[in-house]
Structures are given as C-alpha cells and as structure tokens.
C-alpha cells in the first residue's frame, strides 16, 4: 500500500540547542527552508488543502443526494463532471478534502501523541525501553493493511473506526523515529545536568527531552498524516469507509462499485490527484524541512 520511511532518510540530528550565529535553531531552520523551492511549494499546497478543509462550504454546496445528469464528463456546469448518481464530482472532492484531511490529522495526532509519549518514556526509563523496543519492532514487521481490514470489517465502517484503526497501526513508526532521537538526547550532558537540578522526570521530559525531539515529531506529523490518507483511502476503496460522509476514497469506491471507473475517467482522476497532492506535498515538505534542519546535508 505504502512504503515505510527508513531511519536513514530522516536521520536524527546531533542536537544543537543554539544555532551557529546565536540565532535560535528554529529560526535558522526556517531560513534554510525558505531557500528550498520544493519545500516552499509543498508548504503552499498543504496550506491550500487545509484552507479548503476550512472553507469548504464557501467553495461548493454539499453534494446533493442525486442529480439528473449522470456520468457526465467535465463541463462548464460541472467542473469535474458528475458521478453515477448525477452528483457533482467537484463538490464531492471539495467536501472529501474536509473528511480526508480531518481523518489524516486526527489519526496522526493520536498516533503521534501516543507514540511520542511511549518513545520518550522509554528513552528515559531503560527498563521499559527494552519492552517498548521489542513491541515496536514486532508491530512494524507485520503486514498492517490486512490487520486494519480485519479490524475495520469487524467493528463496522465509521469515521471514528477509521481514525482509530489508522492511529493504532501508525504509532509504532512514530515511536521508532522519536525513540532513536530521544535516546540520543537523554544521554547528552545537559540532561544529566538537569537531573542534578530536579528529580521530577516530568520536568526533565517536558522541558528538555520533548523540545529536543520536536523536529522529529514535526516530520512525523506530516509523514504519518500523509500515510493515514493513503490508508484511509485504501480502506474506503475496499468498502470499509464511512458511507455517510464524503471522502476521496469513497468517490473511488462508488466509481468502482458502479463499474464506471474505466469509462468515466474523471471519477478516478480527480480524487487520485487530490490524494497525490496531499501525500506528495506532505512528504516533500518533510524532506525539505529535514534538509533545512540538518546543515550538513546541504554540503556538496
């Protein structure tokens, strides 16, 4: 379905609390980022998609339950054509953006919060870490989509199910990414210094470890969210999506069910482009961000 992002692609960086010329690390990152055309382009697209999510009602009326012009190709009246029930595909894509983005964000948010917590706790408490490491590795080596299918089929299709299912199988990857960074940070001198100051682990975790792993988390958010989109679309395509709301996967599913996928190319094209836009821009953004954060990668 999708491919994993490997460690080496998003390497944990040696943490510099302060940047070269006295500016804060985040500022320096932003300046480096701004210089990357692909990065900026992808950020723009992401922002656009989020904007569409918010202002969807302004862009198109909610798709009617049916229309009279069935399976019409794109025209002035229906920019993206109509589907097998005569509904406007443009409206479906716009409102589908809302559902797809929300599912992606919600699923990745849960996965990230949970995954980060687990990773950070594990890094700080070595005994737990062994167990966590094993669980994460084991989960990552399993074929996840069949398991997601099993769960979704069992519990029944709904937005909540999709969000929880995708989140449940995305957090191990987050944990793995964050854990390697967290492990590196926990060994750094300033954390030891902090331990001299206070015995409260939450303070150390909150004040030092988490900020240090934040960049990796940022990358994780984007990457996990984009993969959530693909997972959710895949599940919807198989008929396990929420049938009461519009999503990109649902457009494809209904096209598939009505046998129109091949003859009505617009039914396949526009939702696929939308998925591609979101996932692609998210991944490019993550890579550009990572490059910007890691000055060494800019060397020739």
């Amino acid at each position, binding site marked *: *379905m*999708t*491919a*994993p*992002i*490997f460690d*080496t*692609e998003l*390497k944990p960086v040696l943490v510099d609390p302060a940047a070269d010329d006295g500016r804060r690390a985040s500022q320096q990152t932003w300046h480096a980022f701004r210089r990357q055309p*692909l990065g900026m382009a992808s950020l723009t697209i992401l922002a656009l998609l989020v904007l569409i999510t918010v202002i969807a009602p302004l862009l198109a009326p909610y798709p009617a339950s049916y229309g009279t012009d069935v399976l019409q190709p794109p025209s002035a009246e229906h920019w993206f054509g109509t589907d097998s029930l005569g509904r406007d595909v443009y409206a479906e894509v716009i409102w589908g953006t809302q559902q797809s983005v929300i599912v992606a964000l919600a699923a990745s948010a849960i996965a990230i919060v949970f995954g980060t917590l687990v990773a950070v706790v594990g890094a700080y408490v070595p005994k737990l870490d062994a167990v966590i490491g*094993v*669980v994460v590795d*084991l*989960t*990552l*080596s*399993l*074929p*996840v*989509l*069949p*398991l997601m*299918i*099993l*769960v979704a*089929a*069992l*519990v*029944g299709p709904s937005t909540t199910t999709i969000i929880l299912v995708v989140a449940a199988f995305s957090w191990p990857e987050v944990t793995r990414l964050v854990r390697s960074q967290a492990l590196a940070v926990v060994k750094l001198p300033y954390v030891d210094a902090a331990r001299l100051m206070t015995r409260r682990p939450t303070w150390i975790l909150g004040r030092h470890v988490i900020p240090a792993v934040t960049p990796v988390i940022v990358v994780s958010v984007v990457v996990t969210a*984009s993969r959530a989109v*693909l997972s959710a*679309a*895949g599940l919807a*395509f*198989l*008929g*396990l999506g929420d049938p009461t709301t519009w999503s990109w996967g649902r457009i*494809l599913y209904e096209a*598939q069910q009505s046998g129109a*996928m*091949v003859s009505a190319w617009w039914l*396949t094209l526009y939702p*696929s482009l939308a*998925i*591609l836009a979101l*996932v*692609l821009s998210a*991944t*490019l953004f993550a*890579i550009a961000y990572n490059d910007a954060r890691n000055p060494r*990668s*800019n060397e*020739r």
Partner: protein
Amino acid sequence: MSIALFILRRVGRGLLTILFAVTVTFLLLRLLPGDPALAVASPNMTDEARAALLTQYGLDQPLFVQYFLYLGELLRGNLGRSFTQSIPVIDVLMQRLPWTILLTVTSLVLTVVIGIPLGVLAASHKNRFLDRLVQVFGVTGQSLFVPSVGIVLLFVFGLNLRWFPIGGAYDDAVYGMEWYGSVLSHLVLPVISLTLIQLGSYVLTMRATLIEALGEDYITLAKAKGVPPRTVLWKHAVRNAMLPAITLIGLQLGFVVGGAVLTETVFAYPGIGRGIYEAVTQLDFAVLQGAFLLLAVTVVVANMLTDIAYGLLDPRVRTS
C-alpha cells in the same frame, strides 16, 4: 558471537514475532465490539455445528483458557473453517499463496534491480539536477494510490494497446512452456503497479544510505589516495551499501503485502490479497484472520532468512 548462536537468536525472534501476531489477532477479535463468536463461527451455521465450534474454542471460558485453546488449534495447522466456502481456511489460502509470493517476490526483485542504480545515480549527483529528479520520482511513487495506478495501467496497456491480458494469473488451455509465457504476460501489469509504489521509497533510502557511506572516512581516504571516483563509488561505497540494501527489502515486505491486496483486487489476480478482499465483502472472518496470520508468518520467515543471510555475510552484524 558464533554463527549458530546468531541463527538461533534470529529464529527465536522470528518465533516471538509470530506469537505476537497470533496474540494480537486473538485479542482483537475477542475484545473489540461486536459478537466475539464471529471470530470462529459463521452466522450461517446450523446451531449444532456452531455450538460444537464454540466449545472447541472455549468461547464460554475465561480468556486465558481460550488463548491456549486457540494456540493449540493453530499448532495443529487448523486455521478454522471458511464461513462462505465450507472448506478449511488453510486450504483456501494455500491455493492462493503461491501467486501472491510470485507477485511480491518479482516486484521486490525489480525494486532492488532498478532501485540500486537509481539510488547510486542520485547519490553521486547529490543535490544536482539528476538527484532532484530521482528524488521527485521517488517521492511521487511513494504517494500514488495503488488502485488508480492499476486501473490506468489496465486501461492503457490492457485495453487500448492490447499488449497485456486483463485479469487472472494465466491463460487456460495453454500448456508446457507456453503456459509459463502466459503466466509472465499476466504478471507484467500487476508487478509494474506494485513496483512503482515500492520503488520510490526504496530509491530514496538507497540514496540516503549511499550518501552516508560516501561520507565515511575510508572514502575520504580513498579519494585522498587518488583512487578514481568511479572506482570509489562502485567498488567501495556501493559494495558496502549493498548488504543493507538487501535487508531493507525485508523491512518493506510487510508493506508490499499490503499493496498486494489492492493490486490483486484491481487486476483480478488470484492471490491472498484478493482472497482478503473477497472475504471482506462477505465478512468471512475466519479467512480474514487466517490470511493475516499466514501473511505475517510469511513476512517473518522472509525477514528471518534475509537477516540470517546478512549475518552470515557480514560478521559485524552478529555482534549487535
């Protein structure tokens, strides 16, 4: 450590993973909302058959007991009985497994064969045009939605150009060497579809691995010694990156299998992936569980083999 111990540890880990998969499946089906009997008994069964099955799996007993009963059944090779077809799940799946293996292995081999040179290209032209091109290609490939790709390929190459057949794994009424030819022609489009998706991520990782390898000290030393750049690249960097490249395939296995579900459905390819799709539409939970477990075992075994091979070839790994 000694080779024997290394192999033993890897096999042990593999078994642990399988046990983990089994436990996850077991827990999911019994703890999720919904009728727990669905895990073993079809709603269509006669009452006596259903009662017998429920007792066999101990669904009226505490969870602990159920777990061991379940393990017992699995060890006997009993994956349950399909709800829709009245044959054992294991039979249903074994008929389909060879095709999925053919599809995924071919796709992975292609991924490696194409991915390594592309990764080398990108790494050696780092941050220049070719590198960016490969990166964009890689990222795009990773972001494609499998069914869309499949339908487009079918439409263009299957229908319009008539280069390849549509659906199935081979032609009937074809025998001997011709049969192999038909298997091959039916394999092309699904493999392309699956490979395109895997290739992106693989190329990006190869690129990153190589860039890292190229940054190593011994490379700088080789360059300082005046070794020609091409030799540096191929004889040293790539060679050292080869082994991780192969083992990376092991990591991708889980995802390839997932992609196969969607690919096989679109291409009507008779593998386990399509079996899963059919089982979903009919809510045949016995087959769904069995398919997941079988796939998990396959992935784990494959991973184990590549890890052991890697360990045998590269002594450094054995000390980890």
